[in-house]
C-alpha cells in the first residue's frame, strides 16, 4: 500500500515548464524561421477590423430601431457595413405601401396577420394594439430622434448595403418588387459567414 503514496512524486515532470516551451519554440523556429519583424497586432486591428455585418433577424420595433441606428452610424463613421436581412427582418425592407405579400394563401395570410413595412413595426413589450409604438414615435418626435425609416434611408445614402436572404424570400414568397429600392442581390448564409471569416464584425439583431 505504500506504493500509492509514492506514485505522485514520480509523475511530476523533472524539467520546469519554461525550458520545455523554449525547446518547442526553438523547434518551431527551426522549421518556420524566426519572424522578421515584431508583430504589431493593435495597429493591424485598427486598420483592418472596421467592417460590420449586421444580421437583421428581428422585425420588432425596438430591435429594428437598434439595427438601423447602428447601420446608419456605421455609415457615418466611414465603416464598410452590410445589413443581411433575414426572416422577420424582411418586414423592415418590404415597402410600407405593400399590404399583402406572398404567392400562396398561407404566405398571404401571414402578411395579413402581420403588416409588413418598417413604419408598421410592433413592440415586443407593451404594444397594446399599437398604443405602445404610437407613444414611442411621439416621444421620438418630441426629442427629435430619427425614426427607423429615416435611419434606414440615411444608412442607404451613406453606402450601407442591405442584402436579402434568398431562403426567406422563397419561404414567405417575397418578390424583389416587394422590397424597397437599392437592395443588393439575394444571397445565402455562406456569404455572411464568408464576411465573418474575412474579419467582418457580426451583429445579430
Amino acid at each position, binding site marked *: 500500500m505504500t506504493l500509492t503514496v509514492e506514485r505522485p512524486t514520480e509523475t511530476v515532470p523533472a524539467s520546469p515548464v519554461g525550458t520545455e516551451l523554449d525547446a518547442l519554440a526553438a523547434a518551431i523556429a527551426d522549421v518556420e524561421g524566426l519572424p522578421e519583424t515584431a508583430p504589431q497586432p493593435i495597429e493591424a486591428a485598427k486598420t483592418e477590423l472596421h467592417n460590420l455585418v449586421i444580421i437583421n433577424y428581428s422585425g420588432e420595433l425596438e430591435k429594428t430601431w437598434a439595427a438601423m441606428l447602428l447601420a446608419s*452610424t456605421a455609415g457615418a*463613421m*466611414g*465603416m464598410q457595413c452590410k445589413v443581411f436581412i433575414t426572416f422577420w427582418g424582411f418586414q423592415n425592407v418590404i415597402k410600407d405601401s405593400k399590404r399583402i405579400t406572398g404567392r400562396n394563401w398561407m404566405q398571404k395570410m401571414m402578411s395579413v396577420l402581420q403588416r409588413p413595412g418598417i413604419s408598421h413595426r410592433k413592440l415586443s413589450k407593451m404594444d397594446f394594439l399599437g398604443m405602445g409604438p404610437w407613444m414611442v414615435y411621439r416621444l421620438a418626435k418630441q426629442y427629435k*430622434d*430619427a425614426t427607423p425609416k429615416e435611419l434606414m434611408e*440615411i444608412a442607404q*445614402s*451613406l453606402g450601407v448595403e442591405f442584402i436579402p436572404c434568398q431562403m426567406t424570400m422563397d419561404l414567405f414568397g417575397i418578390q424583389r418588387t416587394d422590397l424597397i429600392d437599392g437592395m443588393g442581390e439575394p444571397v445565402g448564409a455562406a456569404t455572411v459567414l464568408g464576411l465573418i471569416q474575412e474579419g467582418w464584425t457580426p451583429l445579430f439583431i
Partner: protein
Amino acid sequence: MTTLEIAAQVDARGLSCPMPIVRTAQGIKPLQPGAIIEVLTTDPGSQKDFVAWCRSTGNELVEQSVDGAVYRFVIRRK
C-alpha cells in the same frame, strides 16, 4: 476666437444620437481635403461621440468648446 476659415456649418442643435454624427458625415463629404467644418450640437453624448468619430474617420478635431448647452466642434477634413 479663431482664424480658421470655416467652409461649411452643420447645425445639429436639438438632434439626438446619431443624427449629429450623421449630419456631419453628410456635410463633410462634398468638402475639399483640409477644409474646415463647424458643428453645433446640444446632445451631451456628442462630446465623446465626435472624438470617437474623428479618430475612426481620420478627420482632425481642431477645436472643441462648450457654450452653455451648445457644444461646438471644429473639424478639418482628412
